[in-house]
């Protein structure tokens, strides 16, 4: 994986001295820098280009988050089983460019790769939320609007986040990535409060659909390094992509992961079918005309998203769950954005409430 190198750094006036800006400038000494006014990105004419989403990724824009950081994971859509996950976003948009990425649609009007400078505000906000409910066990992730670690060599956010969560007893931080950027993490002590998780797909999919991400071997090697450094691991087989050799591909991938790592130090594994809104499918067709991910037997579901049709989807879940249980029987598994009916078919039970899934993943304290 090539490390991200922006064409330009833009800094909102007044944010020049923020620690994250100073770190990035020190690590990117040759990249042109421009000081811009607040709200500049909304008038950026370069984003009128045919592929504004890609253009937006090439510029690194430092600004303040003026809204709240902590949000409920948007996967908690009505009618689907939810796992009570919370997200915080220090970055909006991602240096990688997976063909199926929902950000292509979600950030269509706001694609500039933004980095929020006020990490102190985030920590304060999260701290207050954790203090308000001391008996609740929180799972909080940073990988919703960007990759959690791909920019860490430039931004070093892990040095702010890991010590904070290491000092809190009622929360787990999840850093979700498709990168191999773990060097900063190795310098820190997570004290069992940080899960570093990788999104995993067979190499055939990584190589053709997950542009700019680490290879499978790089991800696995990074996972070995962070596990050795005391971090818990997570894996997300999400999106599960149906392609002609999917059975071989996923089986091999699972076998390789669990033969290289200690399964007793894996906090969770999730499964989630490829899902796309009709608008996202249109965008994907335009941006990636050679992609094969749309060629699976996907149909419109009740929530308006397209997924592999249910019988085939359930077959995929059951097969993959079987291989996971064979390789790592003690690891908790769950599904993302699925109906109670599909849970029942795959796991043989339907969680009574969202809390059930959260409790399973946090050892009964969700």
């Amino acid at each position: 994986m090539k490390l991200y190198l922006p064409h330009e750094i833009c800094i909102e006036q007044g944010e020049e001295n923020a620690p994250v800006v100073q770190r990035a400038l020190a690590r990117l000494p040759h990249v042109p820098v421009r000081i811009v006014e607040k709200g500049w990105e909304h008038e950026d004419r370069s984003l009128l280009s045919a592929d504004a989403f890609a253009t937006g990724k090439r510029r690194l824009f430092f600004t303040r988050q003026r809204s709240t950081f902590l949000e409920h994971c948007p996967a908690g859509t009505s009618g689907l089983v939810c796992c009570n996950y919370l997200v915080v976003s220090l970055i909006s948009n991602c240096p990688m460019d997976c063909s199926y990425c929902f950000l292509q649609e979600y950030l269509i009007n706001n694609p500039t790769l933004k980095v929020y400078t006020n990490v102190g505000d985030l920590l304060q906000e999260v701290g207050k939320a954790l203090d308000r409910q001391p008996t609740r066990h929180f799972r909080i992730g940073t990988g919703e609007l960007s990759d959690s670690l791909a920019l860490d060599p430039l931004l070093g956010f892990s040095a702010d986040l890991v010590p904070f969560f290491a000092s809190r007893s009622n929360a787990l931080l999840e850093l979700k990535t498709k990168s191999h950027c773990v060097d900063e993490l190795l310098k820190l002590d997570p004290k069992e409060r940080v899960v570093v998780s990788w999104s995993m797909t067979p190499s055939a999919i990584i190589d053709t659909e997950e542009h700019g991400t680490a290879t499978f071997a790089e991800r696995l090697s990074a996972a070995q390094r962070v596990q050795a450094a005391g971090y818990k691991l997570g894996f997300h087989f999400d999106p599960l992509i149906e392609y002609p050799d999917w059975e071989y591909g996923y089986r091999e991938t699972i076998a390789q992961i669990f033969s290289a790592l200690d399964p007793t130090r894996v906090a969770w594994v999730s499964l989630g079918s490829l899902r796309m809104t009709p608008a996202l499918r249109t965008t994907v067709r335009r941006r990636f005309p050679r992609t094969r991910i749309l060629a699976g037997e996907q149909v419109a579901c009740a929530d308006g998203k397209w997924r592999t049709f249910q019988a085939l989807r359930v077959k995929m879940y059951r097969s993959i769950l079987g291989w996971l249980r064979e390789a790592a029987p003690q690891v908790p598994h769950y599904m993302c954005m699925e109906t109670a009916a599909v849970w029942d078919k795959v796991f043989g039970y339907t969680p009574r409430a969202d809390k059930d899934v959260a409790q399973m993943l946090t050892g009964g304290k969700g």
Partner: protein
Amino acid sequence: MSLLADQLQAYAQEKRLSEQTLRRWQSWSAEDQAALLTMVQELQLGENHLRDFCDWLDDIIARDGGTVSALLLRSELQHPLGLKLSRNDKVKAVKAALRKLRYPRLSQLEEDLRAAIKALDLGERVRVSFPPALEGDEMTVEIKARNVRELERSLLQMQRKLRDGSMQHVFALLDEV
């Protein structure tokens, strides 16, 4: 501009196709453009049907390889064109055939279910249906009756089919691919 390009433009104007759909069509090889033009002229497809055709053709090619022109010559798609049907029925028939190629396993499952329901022989007053694209696991059974005797007859037949396992077979099929 070439003759083919003119023909595409003329068709797009006549059917008020969107720029996006026309551009997509024009991005194909000349042979593929021409093959689709022949078919859409025959079927007089408008924007929505044409977009479905383009999506499905692109998806099949992405999955199986080959070319649009070769695909459109397949007997499954050519056969309905030769039938004495109204234009609407021809569109339906060609689209159904194309959907079968686009969704082979889903179509097979739908066919198996239709066959299993037919084999239940529940009579004309009982209608069994499934959610669109089998997305969901509920079967809907609708019974029409003009009097108690008709209702009883339908329910007894259903009960027999429950006892002999044929109903169970239908539910099991919903899970099979």
